[in-house]
């Protein structure tokens, strides 16, 4: 057996396997370098999903010929001046990206520092050429051609062009969210796939950040985002959290940044789920972008070669901070339902999206192509019918509850949901407020009220526990069993009494009576997962609340029941004093509000 040192090219190819597993990873490394170089504008081009060309151009500090030659050497970096891994402030620090990429592709670096000459360096399959004079504006362009040509096995694993491009765009977007002051473009050589201009805002960084987030997460997000800002134990959290009414079926739109570095961490999704659990069905996920600022010594960014994972010294603090701050923001938001809802409603009424609308573009005026007969028919359709108000004749339109003198008072400032004016289709309550109208979905609203009441009863009355005649022993990993047993007291308040049973097992002696006959083993295992992932007994709470919510659903007034004015007003008053009455248990709004201004706009009065 002969043991030998591997040649540098081989070492670099091995490292490349960890650092650049696909084009998006190379893009990420190169854009990070550009950001570290202080660029204000970064332009990325990918051809064939990055397979034939990745080019990243920046207007950063640039490199001299000597620096360039050194930069492509392994573990050469300008970014760890005091060799202290515990105080990493730049995106890069491992000095691995350029040599790794250069080992598996044809790499060209062209660069010119502010007050120097432009030089170009070629690296092909790990073999370095000599720097050549070149012509270039200041800044750096790194071009990667034929990525993975030197490692055909890796080439085979690449997905379709479209998928690779999507990943690359995602990588750039994540970085773009962390650097609102930097402008970015990504193109596939023909079309621009993503672009955002450098954002600066005189009113402050917050506005600039939100605009940048909107560029990535969509306008919906910025219009329905709550500001999150909290600090605990020297850890600062800021960012934006979407209203629950804006939700998706994946956690993809939940972003976490630690000291400006985009990271992927299960901790985030767990904490977000915990904070929103009251407002969203299990399979729906809110949108959030959260930025954690923490003493670099308290977080290890050198967990993974691609630097997308971090390890907090005290994950509990960060998790607690996120859950607390999100809950707080949601509580503050209280009644604010998603504006998208009201907007969609208005949109539906607006010209061009539904029936032709008189007095506006769809209405046949001079030069219209509509035949005259039809035009008249349209006009008469909108004319008030003599002696009868359309829509109010059928039983389903119910009695328009003409409300008495209190109405004026109720429509005033004390009662944000106003005075009930009518019930329509035995499903919706229409109320007049000081400056608009509110439409309430009676079933959704009542369901939420009943649910909140039951939850309160649970909290106040304690959870009834059914003793088990045959205590259930559940085998678990010993660490998990211990973790569960450590939380025994908290769990028992939720109705689950368990204790450690030898090593690697717990024995359950009592279960929440509400759950009836339940699969105790599955419950405990889910709980253990929750404790590991997010440090709370979520599964148990969720199950209890699920029971409450089904009971609430059955115990609340249905759509289709007639309500009299007193009942309607009582419902509105209760909604006003109940926390979170703006959404039903499934994250749908319980009411929408139309401001008078909106209505006036609808009628063209504004």
């Amino acid at each position: 057996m002969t043991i030998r040192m591997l040649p540098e090219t081989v070492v670099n190819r091995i490292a490349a396997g960890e650092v650049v597993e696909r084009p998006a990873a190379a893009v990420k490394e190169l854009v990070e370098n550009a950001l570290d170089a202080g660029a204000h504008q970064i332009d990325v081009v990918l051809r064939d999903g990055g397979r034939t060309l990745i080019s990243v151009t920046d207007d950063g500090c640039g490199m001299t010929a000597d620096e360039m030659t050194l930069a492509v050497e392994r573990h050469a970096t300008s970014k760890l001046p005091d060799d202290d891994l515990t105080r990493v402030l730049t995106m890069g620090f491992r000095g691995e990206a350029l040599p790794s990429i250069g080992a598996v592709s044809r790499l060209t670096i062209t660069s010119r520092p502010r007050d120097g000459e432009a030089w170009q360096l070629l690296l092909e399959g790990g073999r370095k050429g000599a720097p050549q004079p070149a012509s270039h504006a200041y800044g750096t362009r790194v071009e990667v051609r034929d990525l993975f040509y030197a490692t055909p096995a890796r080439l085979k694993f690449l997905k379709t062009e479209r998928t690779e491009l999507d990943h690359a765009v995602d990588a750039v977007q994540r970085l773009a969210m962390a650097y609102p002051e930097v402008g970015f473009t990504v193109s596939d050589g023909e079309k621009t796939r993503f672009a955002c201009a450098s954002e600066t805002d005189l009113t402050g960084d917050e506005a600039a950040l939100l605009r940048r987030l909107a560029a990535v997460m969509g306008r919906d997000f910025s219009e329905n985002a709550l500001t999150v800002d909290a600090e605990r134990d020297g850890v600062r959290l800021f960012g934006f959290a979407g209203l629950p009414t804006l939700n998706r079926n994946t956690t993809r739109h939940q972003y976490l940044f630690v000291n400006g570095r985009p990271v992927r961490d299960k901790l985030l999704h767990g904490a977000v789920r915990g904070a929103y659990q009251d407002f969203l069905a299990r399979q729906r996920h809110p949108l959030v972008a959260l930025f954690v600022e923490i003493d670099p010594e308290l977080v290890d960014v050198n967990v993974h070669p691609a630097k997308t994972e971090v390890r907090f010294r005290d994950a509990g603090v960060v998790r607690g901070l996120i859950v607390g701050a999100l809950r707080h923001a949601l509580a503050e938001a209280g009644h604010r339902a998603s504006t998208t809802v009201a907007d969609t409603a208005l949109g539906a009424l607006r010209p061009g999206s539904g029936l032709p609308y008189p007095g506006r573009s769809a209405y046949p005026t001079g030069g219209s192509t509509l035949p005259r007969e039809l035009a008249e028919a349209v006009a008469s359709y909108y004319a008030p019918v003599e002696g009868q108000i359309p829509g109010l004749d059928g039983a389903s339109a119910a009695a328009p509850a003409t409300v008495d003198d209190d109405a004026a008072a109720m429509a005033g400032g004390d009662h944000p949901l106003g005075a009930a004016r009518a019930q329509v289709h035995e499903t919706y309550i229409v109320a007049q407020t000081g400056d608009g109208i509110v439409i309430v979905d009676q079933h959704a609203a009542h369901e939420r009220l009943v649910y909140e009441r039951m939850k309160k009863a649970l909290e106040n009355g304690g959870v009834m526990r059914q003793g088990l005649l045959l205590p259930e022993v559940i085998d678990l990993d010993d660490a998990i069993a211990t973790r569960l047993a450590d939380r025994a007291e908290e769990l028992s308040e939720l109705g689950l009494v368990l204790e450690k049973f030898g090593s690697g097992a717990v024995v359950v002696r009592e279960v929440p009576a509400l759950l009836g006959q339940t699969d105790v083993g599955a419950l405990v295992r889910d709980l253990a997962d929750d404790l590991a992932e997010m440090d709370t007994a979520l599964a148990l709470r969720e199950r209890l609340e699920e029971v409450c919510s089904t009971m609430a659903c059955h115990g609340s007034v249905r759509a289709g029941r007639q309500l009299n004015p007193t009942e309607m007003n009582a419902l509105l008053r209760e909604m006003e004093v109940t926390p979170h009455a703006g959404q039903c248990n499934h994250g749908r709004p319980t009411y929408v509000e139309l401001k008078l201004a909106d209505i006036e706009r609808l009628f063209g009065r504004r």
Partner: protein
Amino acid sequence: MKLTIERSTLLKALAHVQSVVERRNTIPILANVLLDASDGTLTLTATDMDLAITEKVDADVSQAGASTAPAHTFYDIVRKLPDGAQVEVETDAAASQLLLRAGRSRFSLSTLPIEDFPVLSGGDLPVAFSLTADELRAVIDRTRFAISTEETRYYLNGIYLHAVEADGEHFLRAVATDGHRLARVETALPAGAEGMPGVIAPRKAIAEVRKLIDETTNPVEVALSDTRMRLEFDGIVLTSKLIDGTFPDYERVIPTDNDKVLVVDSGVFAAAVDRVSTISSEKSRSIKLAVNPGSLTLSATSTENGSATEELEVGYSDSGLEIGFNSKYLLDITSQIEGDEAQFILADPASPTIVRDTADDRALYVLMPMRV
């Protein structure tokens, strides 16, 4: 196959066997009933692969043969035929259709090949004994309410039947538990059951047996192996697989040193529990028993509904005690008590309580309390 049969005879047999057939079936043949005619007898069989019921009835068979037909449809048709009708049943030449005629009604049902019909083999059933219908009814009624419906603990989804010896006497004992309460009932060990294995009879088979024996007065012949059981009476044979699992060591959970004895009038008690629990929340149904010498106060509270109390005169002379139970569990047990008095043998609010029928020492119930 060709035969004529009295509508009511056919209806009764079909009602018995079709109840095994699941409403939704992924295997088409399992939706069918097997018909086999010979020597003045029609034999009907239905199965869900775990459980099979076969019933023999008299029929005027003019041509022997066999066929299968959709069980529920066949049953529905016969049910709607007028009382007293004579039903002619016949397969066509290709045996692909089953023709039914009664009065002026004609039906033609599509059949499936008889070879596809699964045979639930009886196998060798070494243990055989006989129980009176009364005994079997009592054994099932006293225990089935406690059978678990939670499927991860499949070994609790049935009644555990086994032979025991106590004080020199031999019993056949039945036990069921869902982990919250337990019911145990015993009857004298029938001849032939001495060496029987402990077996767990599945819930569905128990339900079918109970329906089938509801009216009979004849003894039921039981045969067992450790994987199967067969019950036979009145021309009906029910064969079922047994639950392949180990029933937990239930003796361990029956307390032996409970010493506080509460005696209640079971009817009065049940009615009071029923009344008071109206208040308790729908899901947890908790009810509190405050026991003091000579009196019992039942109470329930709910943040939603309010509260209720009711005081009963009882036999009790020990120190005072407060204990909570699921009211539904209490009612399940009291409805099985035939005598006038029920006896609660208590220890403390956290430990299992024993309930007995003072008029029937063969039954014993154990109930876990509920706590806040």
